[in-house]
């Protein structure tokens, strides 16, 4: 979330699309209800189903699963056609006027630079036009047309790109009735006024598509055109999944990242210099903060946190010890490798991939190829028994599976002390209430003990590259049981030597051994350590700021700056400089987030700006980009700088209605598809119905099926279909049905409902089948099939999040 949960109450319009906040985040959703009650805000829900969120909405519009870019692209077109944009904001705070390489093209559904064999783009033509490098300084800047009239400026290209997304076209592709679509556009357009804001609440309904990242990008374009970023009651708000999914994302347990979203070194980064230079951007416009220029400080401080005295400028701060990646290591890539027999050992820490990952059969087959599997979990997960025959729910032969499986009992939240980071980036400390059952142990103790055993083995017997193992910093009072406090202090950052003020080199701002006040104090000379720069300062000399419990809210905006600690720098609304005009005056003084006082930025949040950057210095609000502004045109994306509608990999249509003549533009041209998976994509003639999977409010993933009380609330697996499809198929409410995709089948009870509308897509009636995910063969609920038996093994081209939300099935009475 760029904003935070309580801030939703400051919105004038709440759009819920690509998510179902009432279902998945009821306690956060309360702030939507508060906005309605106290601000007379309106709520609009756009979804393939009439959801629990829709039930309390002022307006609901149906949309076909997998057609969100068509819908949102239509909104962009509407705003530009009707000139309902926040002009000053667009002109100053976005790259609207930036001139793009004249060789950039978009033709017949593909952008310039496409390589069909590799299924990817060479992005050379997607760049900006730059000025000649200054002979003295070498500086070169992006060329800008402040009038936004140049045909090659981002604004004109945007207009041209979305001019095809007419209301008729939108309705044809999405199935949203034209009047309903226009009504949503009208409501959204009202928030183009400087003092009106819309917030967008989305979740996995946007991410779990082969075009997931671009769904969100399209919405980001809308929010910047409307001037809603940085505003109280605005922003782009991803309602995330697990209680600490934000924190674990921030800790970057990804092969491709180090903590704090630092990109992992690859094989091309032959030494530290190459690696660091490549990742330290140069400003693209004069005077911009270009905050990522601090990259060397973050990276060096991380290496010092991990290798302490063994990381020095003499050995490139132990750069060599870091593994260099050679490709993708996301979940789909990992199971693909495992399926090919290239992975021997595997650990599932609080993760149930047999149930959570697409194509259950492929995942089960992959696990059966492991030599050993370790499951660390508080509960008896389905994954831990992938080898066991559970009848038709898990038809395997244990005697033929040679994987050695260890199951280790972990403590749960109630038995643990430490910090969680919520979706609004607020880090909060929690305290242990009781011991876990039996011999269960905390996750930290399990990992630490295992590591200490490995270290002892390497010390005794030697082995491949023991140095990073032997030299890993481990300043814990009990080596097999590091405390959460010790670890959070390491994450937050320490002064290893005295740290000096850059403006006055004689002034010590942090003495050796002290906790640092924040990431601004990090250095690239080895004098500081920090396990995760974005968490810098969460445990300062003042103590554990994540444990603060003062919920005072003097501004009434719900900022509660003394409750816990929000990253970065305790800032609650990111990009908040954009809540003011160029002169530093709030667009809406009634919802002042920050303002320029004449000498400094101040107000009701930590300014997302250098505190003394006077407005006439023209330092723009989007400090993490080298441009200083938000990107309408974004060259970083895998499948194009402007989002384009592509059909899901399993689509009821045989062509992309936007590009009927080009089969290459049917699905996301840059999405990665493995051999064997393309072949098992189903076709509409065999699987005529659009299927979408989702969760229910009564359950949490595959955990609460183990909780009696939740098993009582939703005891048995079901699938939802509309009344018209039920009539066609002779299915009555409560009948048992069998749902098949090209990868397998499930059986469940049919819930026949008015809440799933039949849509007209490209002149054809299209039905949707909805399937909740929560069942499996272990639990207190009635045993059920794993829904992901049905889902396709393909992900978004940027994030590799699987396409759980739009695929094809058939359905019949069981």
């Amino acid at each position, binding site marked *: 979330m760029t904003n935070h949960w309580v801030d939703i109450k400051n919105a004038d319009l709440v759009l819920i699309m690509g998510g179902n906040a*009432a*279902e998945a985040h*009821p*306690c956060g*959703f*309360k702030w939507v*209800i*508060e906005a*309605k*009650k106290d601000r*007379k805000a309106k709520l609009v829900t756009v979804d393939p189903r*009439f959801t*629990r*969120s*829709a*039930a*309390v909405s*002022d307006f*609901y519009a149906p949309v076909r699963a997998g057609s969100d870019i068509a819908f949102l692209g239509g909104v962009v077109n509407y705003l530009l056609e009707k000139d309902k944009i926040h002009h000053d904001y667009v002109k100053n705070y976005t790259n609207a006027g930036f001139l793009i390489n004249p060789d950039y093209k978009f033709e017949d559904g593909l952008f310039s630079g496409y390589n069909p064999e590799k299924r990817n783009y060479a992005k050379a033509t997607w760049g900006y036009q730059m000025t000649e490098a200054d002979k003295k300084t070498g500086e070169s800047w992006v060329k800008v047309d402040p009038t936004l009239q140049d045909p090659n400026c981002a604004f004109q290209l945007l207009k041209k790109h979305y001019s095809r997304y007419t209301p008729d076209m939108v309705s044809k592709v999405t199935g949203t009735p034209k009047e309903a679509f226009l009504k949503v556009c009208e409501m959204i357009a009202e928030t183009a006024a400087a003092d009106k804001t819309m917030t967008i609440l989305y979740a996995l309904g946007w991410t779990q598509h082969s075009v997931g990242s671009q769904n969100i990008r399209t919405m980001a374009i809308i929010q910047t055109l409307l001037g809603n970023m940085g505003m109280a009651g605005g922003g782009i708000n991803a309602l995330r999944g697990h209680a600490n999914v934000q924190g674990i994302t921030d800790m970057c347990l990804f092969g491709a990242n180090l903590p704090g979203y630092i990109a992992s070194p690859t094989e091309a980064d032959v030494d530290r210099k190459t690696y660091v230079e490549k990742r330290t951007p140069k400003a693209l416009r004069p005077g911009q903060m270009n905050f990522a220029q601090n990259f060397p400080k973050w990276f060096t401080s991380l290496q010092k946190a991990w290798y302490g005295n063994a990381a020095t400028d003499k050995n490139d701060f132990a750069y060599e010890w870091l593994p260099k990646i050679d490709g993708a290591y996301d979940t789909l890539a990992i199971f693909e490798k495992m399926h090919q027999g290239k992975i021997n050992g595997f650990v599932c820490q609080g993760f149930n991939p047999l149930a959570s990952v697409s194509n259950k059969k492929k995942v089960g087959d992959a696990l059966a190829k492991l030599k050993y599997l370790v499951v660390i979990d508080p509960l008896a997960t389905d994954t831990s028994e992938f080898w066991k025959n559970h009848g038709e729910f898990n038809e395997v032969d244990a005697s033929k599976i040679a994987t050695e499986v260890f199951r280790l009992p972990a403590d749960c939240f109630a038995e643990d002390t430490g910090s969680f980071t919520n979706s609004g980036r607020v880090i909060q400390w929690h305290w242990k209430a009781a011991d876990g059952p039996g011999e269960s142990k905390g996750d930290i103790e399990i990992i630490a003990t295992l590591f200490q055993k490995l270290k002892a083995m390497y010390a005794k017997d030697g082995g491949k590259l023991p140095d990073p193992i032997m030299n890993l910093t481990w300043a814990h009072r009990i080596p097999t049981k590091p405390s959460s406090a010790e670890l959070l202090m390491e994450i937050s950052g320490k002064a290893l030597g005295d740290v000096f003020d850059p403006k006055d080199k004689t002034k010590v701002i942090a003495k050796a051994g002290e906790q640092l006040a924040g990431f601004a104090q990090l250095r690239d000379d080895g004098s500081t350590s920090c396990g995760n720069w974005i968490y810098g300062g969460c445990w300062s000399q003042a103590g554990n700021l994540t444990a603060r419990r003062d919920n005072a809210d003097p501004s009434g905006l719900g900022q509660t700056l003394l409750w816990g600690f929000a990253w970065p720098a305790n800032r609650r609304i990111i990009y908040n400089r954009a809540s003011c005009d160029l002169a530093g005056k709030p667009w809406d003084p009634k919802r002042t987030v920050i303002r320029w006082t004449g000498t400094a930025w101040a107000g009701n949040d930590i300014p997302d700006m250098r505190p003394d950057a006077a407005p006439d210095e023209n330092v723009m609000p989007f400090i993490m980009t080298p441009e200083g502004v938000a990107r309408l045109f974004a060259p970083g994306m895998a499948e194009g700088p402007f989002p384009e509608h592509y059909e899901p990999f399993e689509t009821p249509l045989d062509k992309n209605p936007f590009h009927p003549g080009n089969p290459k533009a049917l699905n996301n041209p840059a999405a990665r598809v493995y051999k064997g998976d393309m072949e098992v994509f189903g076709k509409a003639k065999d699987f005529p119905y659009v299927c979408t999977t989702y969760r229910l*409010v*009564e359950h949490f993933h595959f955990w609460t099926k183990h909780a*009696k*009380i*939740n*098993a*009582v*609330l*939703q*005891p*048995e*697996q*079901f699938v939802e279909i509309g009344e018209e499809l039920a009539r066609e198929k002779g299915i*009555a*409410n*409560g*009948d048992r049905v069998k749902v098949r995709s090209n990868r397998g089948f499930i059986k469940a*009870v*049919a*819930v*026949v*409902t*008015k*809440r799933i509308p039949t849509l007209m897509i490209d002149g054809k009636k299209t039905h949707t089948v909805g399937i909740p995910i929560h069942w499996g063969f272990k639990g*207190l*609920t*009635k045993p059920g099939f794993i829904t992901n038996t049905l889902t396709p093994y393909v992900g978004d081209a940027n994030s590799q999040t699987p396409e759980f939300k739009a695929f094809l099935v058939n359905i019949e009475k069981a």
Partner: protein
Amino acid sequence: MALQSLDIARRSATTTPAPGVRQTTEVAKLIDVSTCIGCKACQVACMEWNDVRDDVGSCTGIYDNPVDLTAKSWTVMRYAEVEEKGRLEWLIRKDGCMHCADPGCLKACPAPGAIIQYANGIVDFHQENCIGCGYCITGCPFNVPRISKEDSKAYKCTLCSDRVAVGQAPACAKACPTGAIQFGSKEQMKDYAAKRVVDLKMRGYDKVGLYDPQGVGGTHVMYVLHHADRPELYKGLAADPGISPLVSLWKGIAKPVATVAMAAVALGSLFHYVMKGPNEVSKELEDEMEKEDAK
């Protein structure tokens, strides 16, 4: 502390006059159906707080689960898909005891002290005194009490009398994520409802209103309904509830006759709701009831 429920207004089948000196505040729960998302947090909070767990049932093609109130589910959500003015509405109502000002269950109950009405308005069942006859079910205009198969005693929502007694809100009201359940004094709840009515009128619900049925003297659980003119849209909410004529009839006949046989035969047939063979109504109890009726 005004919310304590020690002060008794009425006891079933009891002649002892209720204490009437202390002034306590009438409490109420307001269920704003227009902000209810049917998440069932109230069902969970109720089971968890009250240490009851219903059975794991099955899916019958609807979201309602458990499908009806039971001796262990003292509140359930009822879901109705209705089309109004060409627009789909998913009306979701939390069902449970309404804590009537004039409680039919209490009037019908023959067991002394099995049903209590506190001065704060809470109507509570005391299972240690319950004889499992099931008369409370017929007496209830909302079909709420249920007899347990395990101990043959009647159970229903207590409005968390134990929490309210110490100044806390009922578990369901505290948990409700969207604030669709509010709790406070009856006066506060009526004021809150009035504000909700204004908001919902602005959003086009012309028939919005408060449900506080006067046929039972008003209730201590009230609803804000978008369609207050048609409570039956909300999966059969009683449009005009009143105490069953059977209760008055019974009291009328019982007074002059007052025999065990009458109780065992005639009444047994009248009170057809009884689910399990009731414990026999003792002579003493019948006499007690008669005394009360004679008042």
